[in-house]
């Protein structure tokens, strides 16, 4: 590994943002105020790689509809809401036709509001909070199966698997880690019972207190649901299994990460919801192959494919609008139906900004993924976003 001095990196970043950016009149200027560093980089960096792949592909083919080249302008929002808003405003002032915001609701809200008042459609790379569009307005879109949608699929799966007593583990630290609350709603609607619930703090290395409580639950939990992710999920499941608790565990997309598959025996049988599954012949498998060809390695998270999807959505919107005008694109997004992405088909028509997407349930089997089911849940079951 060659060490690049920090000032060289900083210099390169500064240069990149200072270069004159002259877009041709017909270019689709995509402003991305996303996090290349800081706490959200783990999601935004892979999403950005997927976006880039789609952009290169489309531009190599002569642009959208052979006409509109995509000009991606990237500003590092450094995982900081204030920085995100500043970057978003600059990108909008700079003529961006659409805005891309980070993989989290908090920074996306501020940036989304800038987009909202400028009449620019904004997409979060991979935030899954169904509240995000509600908090911002009709110009804010998400790009991932919503927390409530994922939870509906996993709760139904739990009931269908015959589980009756669930334990849920929640962190109040983020809205995402409260996803099990949606699970609880659906699980109880379908006749199950939540016999215990606990809190944890993100980054907590110790779950012994929770595990000790789970062990003493009466009646015992026959399924455990959490949206904890790294590093909490591995620590939790290790301590859970070490305590001799064998109840099945259901997680969510946060654990769709190589770490989960490297955990060994403790993760065997864990089921989690995520945005897609690379079945043979599927678009996701094709995407993974393209990604590997471009980057020399397999994507290690679904977020890359999700970033690819985002550009495919923009492509479809521009095609529909036959324009790179902000207003026209926004109108077009609201009418999109069944756009074929790498992970799923994507529909914005008739939604409030959270797309209709399929959810894949995946089981960890011998360190590999096995598809349990893939579906868009019954709309009537999906709990309303809770604030």
């Amino acid at each position: 590994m060659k060490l690049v001095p920090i000032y060289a990196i900083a210099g390169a970043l500064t240069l990149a943002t200072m270069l004159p950016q002259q877009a041709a009149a017909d270019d689709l200027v995509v402003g991305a105020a996303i996090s290349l560093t800081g706490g959200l980089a783990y999601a935004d960096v892979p999403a950005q790689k997927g976006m880039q792949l789609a952009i290169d592909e489309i531009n190599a083919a002569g642009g959208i509809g052979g006409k509109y080249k995509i000009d991606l302008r990237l500003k590092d929002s450094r995982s900081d809401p204030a920085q995100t808003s500043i970057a978003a405003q600059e990108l909008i002032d700079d003529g961006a036709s659409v805005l891309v915001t980070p993989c989290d609701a908090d920074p996306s809200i501020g940036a989304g509001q800038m987009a909202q008042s400028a009449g620019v459609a904004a997409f979060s790379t991979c935030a899954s909070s169904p509240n995000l569009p509600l908090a911002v307005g009709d110009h804010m879109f998400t790009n991932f199966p919503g927390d409530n949608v994922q939870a509906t699929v996993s709760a139904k799966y739990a009931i269908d698997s015959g589980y009756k007593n669930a334990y849920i583990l929640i962190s109040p630290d983020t809205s995402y880690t409260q996803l099990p609350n949606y699970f609880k709603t659906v699980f109880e609607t379908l006749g199950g019972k939540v016999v215990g619930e606990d809190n944890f703090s993100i980054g907590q290395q110790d779950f012994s207190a929770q595990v000790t409580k789970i062990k003493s639950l009466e009646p015992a939990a026959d399924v455990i649901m959490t949206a904890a992710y790294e590093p909490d999920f591995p620590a939790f499941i290790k301590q859970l299994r070490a305590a001799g608790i064998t109840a099945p565990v259901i997680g969510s997309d946060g654990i769709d990460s190589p770490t989960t598959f490297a955990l060994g025996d403790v993760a065997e049988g864990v089921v989690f919801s995520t945005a897609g599954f690379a079945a043979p012949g599927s678009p996701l498998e094709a995407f993974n192959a393209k990604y590997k060809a471009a980057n020399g390695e397999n994507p290690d998270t679904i977020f890359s494919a999700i970033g690819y999807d985002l550009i495919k959505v923009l492509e479809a919107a521009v095609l529909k609008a036959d324009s790179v005008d902000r207003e026209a694109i926004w109108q077009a997004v609201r009418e999109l139906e069944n756009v074929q992405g790498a992970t799923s088909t994507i529909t914005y028509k008739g939604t409030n900004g959270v797309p209709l997407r399929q959810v894949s349930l995946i089981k960890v089997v011998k360190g590999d993924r096995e598809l349990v089911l893939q579906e868009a849940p019954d709309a009537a079951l999906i709990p309303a976003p809770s604030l």
Partner: protein
Amino acid sequence: MEIFVQQCVNALSLGGTYALLALGLAVVFSVLGMINFAHGEILTITGYTVFFSLMLAVPAVLIIPLALIVAMLAAAAMERVAFRPLRGAGPTSLLITSFAVSGILQVLFQNLISARPRPVPIPDFLTGAFTVGPFHIGVIQSLSILATLAMVGLLTLFLKRTLLGMAIRAAAVDFPTTRLMGIRANRVILAAFAISGLLAGVSGLLWIAQRGSVDPLMGFLPVLKAFIAAILGGIGNLTGAVIGGFFLGAIEIGLQAALPEPVQPFRDAIALTLVVVVLLYRPQGLFGAVHSVRP
């Protein structure tokens, strides 16, 4: 009753890892009067060492010593490159520098290694547990208790029995006078950093075994906890740091076990409030801060 004993084991194990980290902070603080916030990045470096060793198929028996050596060298290098040029610039400059070092390392990890967590497969026997009577004791849990005891024991021996150890204790009291003994300031400071690196390396290994991955930002939270533990124990006081670590572990586990579910989200706030209450009555911490003459 059984649950109580189980929770005590839990508290010991969690407190132990806090104690190791706090001890690392305290050793450096005791001689330099600075909190090294880049201490957490030593954990991260330890983790990446394990990750790359596994990738390069380094024999398993070598990985742990290698990781610990790298941790010590990294801490020493930090001192040499970042802090030594600022010697004498005052604790505030050093503190700010340590934040900068921490931030720069995080960005380097993100840009040069990966913004994503990297998996570190941990052998299954480490994730197991054994049963003693009615108690389930996790292997990692027991390892962290044992490692804490071993490190505290070794460190005590080192500080009491070796000349360098005595010099570190002397420097903690009165640095200039220690130099009047012909003891090289740089050696003492370097040794303090190397020790803190070793302690961070051990806690890093335990933390990695627990979480199964390395992440560019993983060092932040542990160092924050360690900071609280060190303050609680009496900043710069080594015994205090250990006790502070166990105390913090006990508070956290105790609240987790005892608080009713609706209050649980306020657990960290309550824990910190308890810490503040302790500090209100004992502003110098449980064991009294060290007031000493610094370089």
